[in-house]
């Protein structure tokens, strides 16, 4: 018969939780460092490339941004605050897609504000299309 050594504790065995706590703390610090709380706000241009309505129907309502920094529609200069009423008064299908034709040299801030005003006027989709010089 095998004898138990006398030094073995006879009372109940306690699990050492210190390594567990160490590990959990390391995981916690890793996730705190790796988490990045970004909260962006912005505009989404919800157009579909498959929707081909340009040939048979009337062409989409379009605005031009030449490199001079102006904003034009059909060759005449319009102001930023006029866009929302123009879009709102546009009939039927031309409202579904607003085209913004941007030339190299025009500023992204202005293009974004035109998109914003068009969405404010009730446009369903806004497309930025680059014009080759």
């Amino acid at each position, binding site marked *: 018969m095998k004898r138990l050594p006398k030094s073995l504790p006879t009372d109940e065995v306690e699990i050492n939780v210190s390594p567990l706590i160490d590990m959990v703390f390391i995981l916690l610090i890793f996730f705190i460092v790796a988490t990045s709380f970004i909260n962006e*706000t912005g505009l989404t241009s919800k157009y579909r490339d498959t929707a081909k309505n340009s040939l048979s129907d009337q062409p989409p309502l379009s605005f031009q941004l030449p490199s001079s920094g102006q904003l034009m529609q059909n060759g005449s200069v319009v102001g930023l605050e006029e866009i929302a009423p123009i879009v709102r008064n546009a009939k039927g299908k031309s409202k579904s897609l607003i085209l913004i034709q*941007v030339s190299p040299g025009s500023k992204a801030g202005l293009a974004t504000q035109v998109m914003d005003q068009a969405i404010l006027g009730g446009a369903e989709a806004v497309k930025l299309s680059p014009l080759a010089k």
Partner: protein
Amino acid sequence: MRLYGRARAYEENEVGAINVSPLIDVVFILLIFFIVSATFVSLPGIEVSRPKTQTAESLEKNSILFALSQENRIFHAGEEIGLKQIPSLIELASKDRKKPVVIQSDEWADAALLAKVILEARRKAPSVSIATRKPK
């Protein structure tokens, strides 16, 4: 006197042992909170001044970010990239899950380049948004 004796006996059993169970509970709750809220978005690495718009709405948090600087340079995950690299980078970053793309464009960047970046991104991403800020 009996009560005193009992309390004393209890104290003698656990000499100076701090009860760590509440600490572990709190740490576990914090850990679970950070695991759940972790999204691992790689930031573009530059700060741009976003255009002000009125209709801005909150965008998806777990999206792929690109930045367009004032000097018309494109950044992604801390590195400058070219226009033609955008579709392959989106494919690499989304890993079969269709992640939306957010473009942080500077107010004074070239609008034609922004339009080209959007066109390139749309080839792979389900939706492309432009990051803006609300006017104060």
